[in-house]
């Protein structure tokens, strides 16, 4: 049993509602993004295709942010998710160097790190993370990965050409890919 996000690449329209709802809940200023939607293009005209990837903390089992945190601010909570204790945080930024996904964000001005907490207080009260309830396409979910896998089929992955190897951190994430997302000939595009 491990908790994590499920993301369906096939359905995502790239609208970035999840990103904006996350910023709203976390009160984030411009430049600090806990959930980021990125868009990619593969292939060549006129056969080019595109897909979007909504990524946030993967609440890794071998989380490098936790291992490398000198103050113990980054830790695994009792439910296995990676949490961050703002009181303990030194703002050293080691976690921002260690995380291969670029998840922890250092607010230089405030001198503190922040990242996705998978909306733990909301989940503890029986609610979903805000990004999940915001999704126009219902292509984001959070829960027990085994359950998510049984619901969404066996072909879920943790690895795409645009992502770091899952061997690095053992991420708790389940991605339903579409074919073009496996293409190594991929360019990130600003929309």
């Amino acid at each position, binding site marked *: 049993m491990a908790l994590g996000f499920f993301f369906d690449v*096939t*359905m*995502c*329209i*790239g*609208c*970035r*509602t999840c*990103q*904006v*709802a996350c*910023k*709203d*809940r*976390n*009160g*984030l*200023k*411009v*430049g600090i*993004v806990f959930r980021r*939607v990125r868009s990619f*293009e593969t*292939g*060549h*005209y*006129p056969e*080019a*295709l*595109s*897909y979007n990837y909504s990524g946030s903390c993967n609440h890794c089992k071998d989380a490098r942010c936790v291992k490398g945190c000198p103050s113990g601010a980054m830790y695994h909570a009792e439910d296995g998710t990676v949490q961050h204790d*703002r*009181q303990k945080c*030194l*703002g*050293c*930024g080691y976690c921002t160097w260690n995380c291969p996904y670029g998840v922890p964000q*250092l607010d*230089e*001005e*405030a*001198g*503190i790190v*922040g990242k996705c*907490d998978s*909306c733990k*207080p*909301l989940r503890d*009260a029986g609610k979903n993370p*805000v990004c999940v*309830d*915001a*999704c*126009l*396409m*219902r292509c984001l979910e959070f829960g027990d990965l085994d359950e998510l896998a049984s619901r969404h089929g066996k072909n879920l992955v943790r690895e795409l050409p645009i992502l770091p190897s899952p061997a690095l951190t053992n991420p708790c994430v389940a991605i339903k890919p579409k074919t073009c997302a496996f293409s190594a000939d991929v*360019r990130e*595009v*600003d*929309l």
Partner: protein
Amino acid sequence: MSRLFPKRKNTDRIPAGREFDQAAIDGQGKWIPAACWFNCGGRCYNAALVVNDMVVRQKTDDTHPDSPDFPQQRGCPRGRSMRQQVFGPDRLKYPIRRKHWEPLTGGDKTLRGRDEWVRISWDEAIDYVAAELKHAKETYGNRSIVVPHWANSFSEFYEVLNAFGGFTQIFDTGSFGTYVYVSLVLGLPLLDMDSANDRFDLRNSETIVLYACNPAWAAGGNPAYHFWQAKKAGAEFIFVGPSHNATADYLDARWIRVRPGTDTAFLLAVAYTMFKEDNPAGNPLIDWDFLHRYTVGIDAEHMPDDAMVDENFKDYVLGKYDGQPKTPAWASEISGTPVNDIVWYARQMRKDRKVALLHSYAAARCNNADDFPQIFMSIGAMGGHFGKSGHSCGAAYHFQSANCGPSLVSAGASGAPELPNQVTDIIAAVDLWDAILTGKYDSTPGPMIGVPVEKDIDIDIRVIYHAARNSLQTIPGCNKAIDAHRKLDFVVSNAFSLNTSARYSDIVLPISTQWERQSDYFYRPASNREVQFFPSRVIQPLYEARSDQWIATELCKRLGLDAKKVYPISEEQKYFNVIADSQVINAQGTGYETLVTISEEDLAEWGAKWGVTGTPQQGRIGLKELMEKGVYQVERYEGDNKGFISYKDFIEDPEANPLNSASGKFEIYCQTKADLINEMGRSTVKPYPTYIPALNGYEQSFSDWDNKVKGEYPYQVYNPHYPRRAHTVFDDTPVLREAWKNPVFISAHDATQKGIKDGDTVMIYNRYGKVLRKAGISHRIMPGCIALPHGAWMNIDEKTGIDNGGSDNVLCAPVTTGCGVTGYNTNLVNFEKYDGNPLEADTENLPRAMKLTKEVK
């Protein structure tokens, strides 16, 4: 090293939004259903979490469990950013005037748009505005005051100006393009709205054509999700347009590429292929029974009684009149569509396939697109794709995208009087700036609204009043608009932020947002068919902001008008009346019943809080529960007798249920259309659809078409609706600027030729203006085409004359054709790598109001 010894602020607790989680779930904070009131393309649920009179968070619909059949009405990133806008640094706090403005002369008028601002009191502001209006009326007459609005119904503010004797109006085909003129006459519903089947029936289609539609970007909320349900049910999607857009991507649509403004050529070749390949015995493509019974003008055997020209559609397509058969090869040279794709598309239209032909209005927002609605309809008719389950031919646009049909829950009437505008001048929007600069205009909107066509009318416009529309940058030709603004005696705006029209004004009156009002608004009832939203006031008006009706009432006092006659009903009472009068479909789906139950207790509460009166009534849901929820949604399910098949009555009995056209049928030959447009004198069209190369279209990108030598402006630019904003609204919202970077999309082929790399700053220019954007290089856009997202806030550098904001209408030509269409998608440009300073990210270029009002005294 600095990170080892961080500059941590001297605080143990740096506020984080998540600290409001508790308030969000345990009742410490109050969730208030909040308006989402702009013309974004969606209609969705929004709510604001209020803690200690502060909005600390937003959410969307959680009023019932979510399912594809009974979906929550989830909002898009714009809706989720609403509090950034309401409380944003750009909010105007006080009435302001230009520092170098002087009453009745305008002072130094050339400083409009670049002057400093001075804070003034409301009394001063209203006195000034009233004095200018009176002066213009007494000296030059009411015709000298222009209010470039969409329609009176868009804002109650316009009533004061109607009561004052009226104003010159504009007529803008806007979003709907040529459909504004040629929908009813062809037999289509007005604007071709509500013309396709509903979302449940969409699941019965085998093929769904999305003709230039992009609900993923342009119709927030559920439309994209509804189309996904059709895909899951097995529909194959076809997308037609100049770029393989976000919608084509997620639906795995087959891309049929067509250059902007060449759609009629493409579809004529589709018709040619259908005529040529159709064989009733072996290969039945065309539904001849349908054409015979429900249409006129397909061929010489089916001419309408009112035909004045002895020509028909089929013989034109086959080349009988001009010697040019409209073959796929002929069209391909124009539209850029491969011949094989045209033939394939034609075969998909076959009568024995369940096809939904759905269009946006992008192809009709082109010069010389007067015949696009007719050819689109004609192809649908040839396949017989009207009025049957799985088959439909109509619009997929905005909140009706993927879900057409009459409202199942609808708003009532407010009871407010609508005053007539006594000025009869109506100027085509594209001609407005020239009319101000030259003092002349041609009246062509005429035949549609009962005003005679007349040329060279003298007009002396002295005042422009901007309210409920940001016209300076939503009408083509922004540089000409600036010249026009700098000529006028007086320019005034009602605005909540310094939008472009306000920026070029003399006086700006700060209005409250819909979150600060307990009132109705134009787009609230314009809902998706299963839902009505009932937001409440979230907060008290901020700073000195006031409602439009308050401003209008104050103006009445200074203009010698009886405010009680112009505005006899308060904003709160009007909203209450609309709610009380709302209707909902009954359980059987056979009729409507009253939506809201109102008790004596409700009346006492509303009376005390909002000064509202009413009478008790019985309905489906109590007022208190309705307003706490903020939404009423009819629960739909398969086979619930609330579905919609468009044209069903007409198809079942065409004689008893004729269409709006002269013949009562779909007019593939339409004498009324030809007469209507030809009378305007801007173009000459045939009664049947023909291809006319567009003004500023693809052909005109060549100096020598026959030898394919490109001209001075060799690229076509078009303007996709963009998720960062609703037209121009929201574009000053930081989180949206961060999420959506607003590059200009350029084909990889063209970029390579010009030596431009992704992210390079490029200048796009033509004879009307210059804009800067970062290049977004894409393999999913046709070479020769440039997509400049619609609505970016214009920000012209006075030294260079270059718009650093990337506003589309800086490049759109203030010229028109045919029905006077605003032809946003047919414009020609060139572009090059910019050799000045690279453009900074748009997030670095905020906020506007603070920068411009820092001189406020």
